[in-house]
């Protein structure tokens, strides 16, 4: 085997075109990690909301603030994408939608539905509501 192999190694993940199913897989991880990072905040809000009336009012005020509403939209995206992709993975476990064509179609469907849910949440939490 030649030691002067000058073929380029090109592993810049940002420039390799990933199939939609691979993008779905990595977003499943990213959304999961995002939600793990939000856990301390969520537990804090839960315990504060159950403490007393003042705590509950404080939680309501916190959730109503603009930064929290923006984070809320991001959270809705993470949750909806993670749930839908998870359902898709479990169906794949049972060989439902296992063919390449269907798997690609359902991957697009998950991306689309998660995005639509987030847009709706954004509309409710930032625009249309209140």
């Amino acid at each position, binding site marked *: 085997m030649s030691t002067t192999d000058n073929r380029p190694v090109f592993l810049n993940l940002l420039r390799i075109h990933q199939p939609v199913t691979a993008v779905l897989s990595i977003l499943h*991880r990213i959304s*999961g*990690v995002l*939600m*793990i990072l939000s*856990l*301390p905040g969520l*537990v804090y809000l*839960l*315990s504060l*909301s*159950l*403490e*007393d*009336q003042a705590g*509950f*009012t404080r939680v309501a005020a916190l959730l109503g603030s603009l930064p929290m509403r923006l984070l809320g939209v991001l959270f809705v995206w993470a949750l909806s994408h993670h*749930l839908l992709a*998870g*359902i898709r993975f*479990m169906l794949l*476990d049972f060989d439902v939608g296992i063919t390449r064509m269907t798997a690609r179609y359902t991957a697009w469907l998950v991306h689309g539905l998660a995005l639509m849910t987030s847009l709706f949440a954004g509309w409710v939490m930032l625009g249309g509501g209140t």
Partner: protein
Amino acid sequence: MSWRASSGLRAWLLQRLSAVYILVFLLMFAYVWRGQVITYDTWHAWVAHPAANIALILFAFALLLHAWIGGRDVIIDYVKSVALRYVLISVFALGLIILGLWTLRSVLLVGVT
């Protein structure tokens, strides 16, 4: 299968079982609170109800288990240094345990008062 040989399969199965419970709980939660404005009194009363209290604690447990398996996989996949890996996994486990106990305390206190 030995305990060690089956641990991967068990994690795989627990990840799916906890996922199903999380999904069912969230759907039930959304159904129960559909179209309602949550006040402190209704929120507190709901959490104090034994069925909701237990379902909520089980939800917290399923969520932390799910986060543990998923987060541990992510750490193992991306952190190559064995030492750093063990540090991160230990901190992660400790963090989840603290969050679990904190939740348990909050929810149970509502249940008994």
